C-alpha cells in the first residue's frame, strides 16, 4: 500500500512538474520545476530498488547541473516579446523536433507493450538478483563487462573538459596574480630594518 501510494505521488508530481517546466513563463521557475521533476524521478528509482542511481541523479543533476542552469538563467535578462517574435522563424525546426519526439514516444510505448527487453547476462537471460547491494552490482558490471565502454565514456568526458578549457581560457597580460608561496617564504628581515634616526633628520630609504 505504501509503495503504491508513493509511486502515484512521485509519478503524478513528476509529470505535473515536467509539464509546468515547459509551461512556466519565467525561466527561473522553469529550472526550479525541472529540479522538482528530477527529485521525483529519484524517488521513483528508489522505489525500483535502484538507490545508487537515485542518489547519483540527485548529486549530479540536482546538485551540480541544475545549479549551473540556475546560475546562468538567473543572470539572463530575457525579453519575452522578443522570444515570441522568433516563434515563426523557428517553427519548422521545432515541428520536426516535435515529430521526432512524438514518434520516439510511440515507439517507446510500443516496445513497452511488446514486453521487457532481455538485457543482463551474455546468453540473454535476465540478470540474476544477487544478495549484494546495487552499488556493488553496478560496480561489478561496469568494471568487468562494460569496462571499455566505461573507459570510452571517461575519455569523451576528458575531451569535453579539455575542449571547454581551451575555448574559455585566455591569456590576459598585465594581470598581477597572488603568489602565495612567495608571500609565505618572505621573512621579516627581507622586508624591514631598524634605524635610529637623529631628531629632525628623517630616514634614507
Amino acid at each position: 500500500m505504501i509503495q503504491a501510494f508513493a509511486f502515484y505521488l512521485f509519478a503524478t508530481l513528476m509529470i505535473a512538474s515536467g509539464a509546468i517546466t515547459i509551461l512556466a513563463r519565467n525561466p527561473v521557475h522553469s529550472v526550479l520545476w525541472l529540479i522538482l521533476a528530477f527529485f521525483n524521478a529519484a524517488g521513483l528509482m528508489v522505489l525500483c530498488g535502484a538507490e545508487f542511481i537515485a542518489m547519483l541523479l540527485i548529486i549530479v543533476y540536482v546538485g551540480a547541473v541544475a545549479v549551473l542552469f540556475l546560475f546562468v538563467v538567473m543572470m539572463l535578462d530575457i525579453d519575452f516579446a522578443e522570444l515570441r517574435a522568433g516563434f515563426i522563424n523557428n517553427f519548422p525546426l521545432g515541428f520536426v523536433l516535435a515529430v521526432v519526439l512524438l514518434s520516439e514516444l510511440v515507439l517507446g510505448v510500443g516496445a513497452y507493450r511488446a514486453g521487457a527487453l532481455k538485457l543482463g547476462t551474455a546468453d540473454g537471460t535476465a540478470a540474476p538478483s544477487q544478495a549484494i547491494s546495487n552499488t556493488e552490482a553496478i560496480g561489478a558490471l561496469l568494471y568487468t563487462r562494460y569496462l571499455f565502454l566505461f573507459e570510452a565514456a571517461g575519455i569523451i568526458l576528458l575531451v569535453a573538459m579539455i575542449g571547454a578549457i581551451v575555448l574559455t581560457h585566455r591569456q590576459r597580460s598585465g594581470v598581477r596574480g597572488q603568489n602565495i608561496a612567495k608571500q609565505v617564504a618572505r621573512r621579516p628581515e627581507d622586508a624591514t630594518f631598524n634605524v635610529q634616526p637623529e631628531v629632525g633628520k628623517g630616514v634614507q630609504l
Partner: protein
Amino acid sequence: MTELFMNLGLSYEWAWGISTIAGILLIALPLMLGVAMIIYADRKIWAAMALRRGPNVVGPLGLLQSFADGLKVFLQETIIPSAANKGLFLIAPIITFTVALMAWAVIPFNSGAVLANINVGLLYVLAISSLGVYGVVIAGWSSNSKYPFFSAMRASAQMISYEVSIGFILICVVLWAGSFNMNEIVKAQKDHVWIINGFVANPLLFPMWVMFLISGMAETARAPFDLTEAESELVAGYQTEYSSMSFALYWLGEYANVLLMCALNATLFWGGWLPPLDIPVLYLVPGFVWLLLKILFFFFVFSWVKATVPRYRYDQLMRLGWKIFLPVSLLFVFLISGYLMATGHFA
C-alpha cells in the same frame, strides 16, 4: 523500533509509519534544542576569545538567551519586499531549514540506532548537502536586490567547488570501509590502528580528515569562508531582505548544518559512536554519549576557527578549492586505492 510497535498488535504499515514519525521527532526535537544551546555556546566561546562576557543577562549565565531571541523573532513582523518574488522568497528559508534536518536521517547514534539504515547512506548525505545551496540561491534571486544576488552567485560557485573535493575525500573513506552505509563505516573503524577507533589515526587518511574539516567549513559557509554573508561587502548577503521567522529559519538551518558537519567528522573519521580507544571499560558508556562528545568537540573547533581566523578573499577561496584540495584529494584517492590493492584489502 518497528518491531516494538508490531508487538503492540499493529499491522506492519502502521507500525512502520508510527515508528518512523517517532524516530523523526526523536532526532528533530533534541536537535532543535541542541541548536538553541549551541548558538549560545558559540556566542560564549566567541566572546571568551575576544575577552568579552557574551550573553549573560537572560536566565542563569545567559542560558536562556537563544530562547529569548527565538521568541523575539517569532513575534516580529515578516516583511516581504514589494519587488520580491513572493512565493520563492518564502520557500527559500524553508528549503534551507528542511535540508539541514534531512541529512540527520542517516547519522548512526549507536550500533544500529539510525532512522534510515540505507545502503547508500554516505551518498545520501552528499546528495542532501548539495541541496543546501538552493535555499541561498533562491533567496538571492527572489529578493530582487543586488547584494543578496551577489551573495547567491558566490554561494553557488563556492559550494560546488568544495563539494568536488568532499566527494573525493568521502571516496577514500568508502574505499577503506568497503561500504556506503554509515553504520558499517563506523564499525570498520574499530581497532583501526593499534587500539585507536577511528580512521584519523591512519597516516593516509589523516590529511583527508584535515581537508574534510576545512571543506566542511567552506561548505557550511562558516568563518573564515563566510563570503556569502560578508558584512563589509554585502550587508548580510542573501539574508539581507529577510526578517522575523524567515530569518530565524536561516539561522537555525546554518547551525543545524554546522552540527551535521561536526557529526560527519565524528562519524567518518573519529569512530562515531565507538569510544576513542578500544578498551572494554569505555564501552560501558553508551554510544550516543561518545558521539555527542565528539560533536561538541568539533563544534568547539568550528567556533575557535570562527573567532580567530580572518576571512578569506574570494579568489583565495576558489584557489584553495580547485588548485589545492582537488588535486591533493585526487592524489590520495590514487594512493589509498593503490595501497589497499597492494595489501590485498579487497580480496
